[in-house]
């Protein structure tokens, strides 16, 4: 399953520590999300991705990480984020 950003314009973002605000320019809605969710959204605004691609992106960022997160842990967290972002209409499934 491939996901893409569902908005015509990239959502505006501001982050402070462990909290980020995403402003959906198309709908005018404002959302409080985690920094990871904000990063996932940024990635999907650049290109369509499936869960596996997103996991790879996280792994690339964890190359020098002595204790990288477990694969299942990443998959669960990213799946939840994708569902949450879809629920608030920031992303959607892409037609194959």
């Amino acid at each position, binding site marked *: 399953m491939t996901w893409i950003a569902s908005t015509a314009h990239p959502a*505006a973002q*501001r982050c*402070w520590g462990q909290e980020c*605000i995403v*402003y959906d*320019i198309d709908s*005018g809605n*404002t959302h*409080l999300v985690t920094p990871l969710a904000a990063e996932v959204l940024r990635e999907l605004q650049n290109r369509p991705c499936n869960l596996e691609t997103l996991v790879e992106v996280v792994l690339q960022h964890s190359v020098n990480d002595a204790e990288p997160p477990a694969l299942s842990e990443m998959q669960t967290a990213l799946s939840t984020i994708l569902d949450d972002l879809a629920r608030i209409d920031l992303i959607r499934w892409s037609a194959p």
Partner: protein
Amino acid sequence: MKVSDLSSSELMAQLSGTGLQLLTGQFQIGIRSQIPALGRTLALLYGDYSIGNEQGFTDFHVQLRYPMGLRRWWRKQVVFEFDSALPFKPLPAAQAFPMFEWGLNWCVSSYANLYLIIHAAVVEKNGFAAILPAPPGSGKSTLCAALVTRGWRLLSDELTLIRTTDGHVVPLPRPISLKNASIDIVKAYAPQAVLSPKVYDTVKGTIAHMKAPATSVARAHECAKPGWIIFPRYAVDAATSLLPISPAHGLMRLADNAFNYSALGLTGFETVADIADTCPIYDFTYSVIDEAIATFDRLAEEVAQRDIRPI
């Protein structure tokens, strides 16, 4: 020329003729009315305001008048007319002045989209503005009234105007609306304050308006940089507390209190986000006014001691 330079008969002649051009902050208001009680309260509370040029641009044309029709022969009413339209239902004639104030707030909050407009009181000291967003009944106006009787400058009691080009607060100092118990609390706290006669049985209960300090009116063109966002809440017997809120949560709450956040789109978001980025944000609970003032004074002192330049 100021409103206080007019005799009461001259003021009524202007109001009932071509209209009084009242300058409040950035706005010129054209007011027409033949209601004597409205003229008396305007003279009492707006004496320090300048009268604008009749040939100049009038931002809002308003008229307070008795309604037409047979109904006018029973229990007199008043209507608020804006650009020849009646946006509100009539109110009892005794409520003419509160209706003028509420109507003017509505004009600004509905049409002044050059600014981000937050439902908040705002006061200034040492060049920085404390923005106090809060729902009705939270003690916002009581606190605002107390602060301006103790050296803080009134920028606005109800509508905080943020200029979207630079994020500065644009003053709109007008009378402070006090409700119910807060009227006597403010009278006791600041006996020198000038208050309008009480108006009973309004939708908000008993209302009285406190005159804005003359110094605040005189400085109505001096903008201020936002210094703090403080969400005030009066709670009986509560200890005074000032608790920090994260910028992200503060931004969400600030946006909730803005009249035109959605209408301004990305500009609204960027303006609110810039404020959240640069201002400390707090939840403030109080029950003792002197302690509340001391807390605000401490914040202003900290800024002064750090020698931060306001603009």
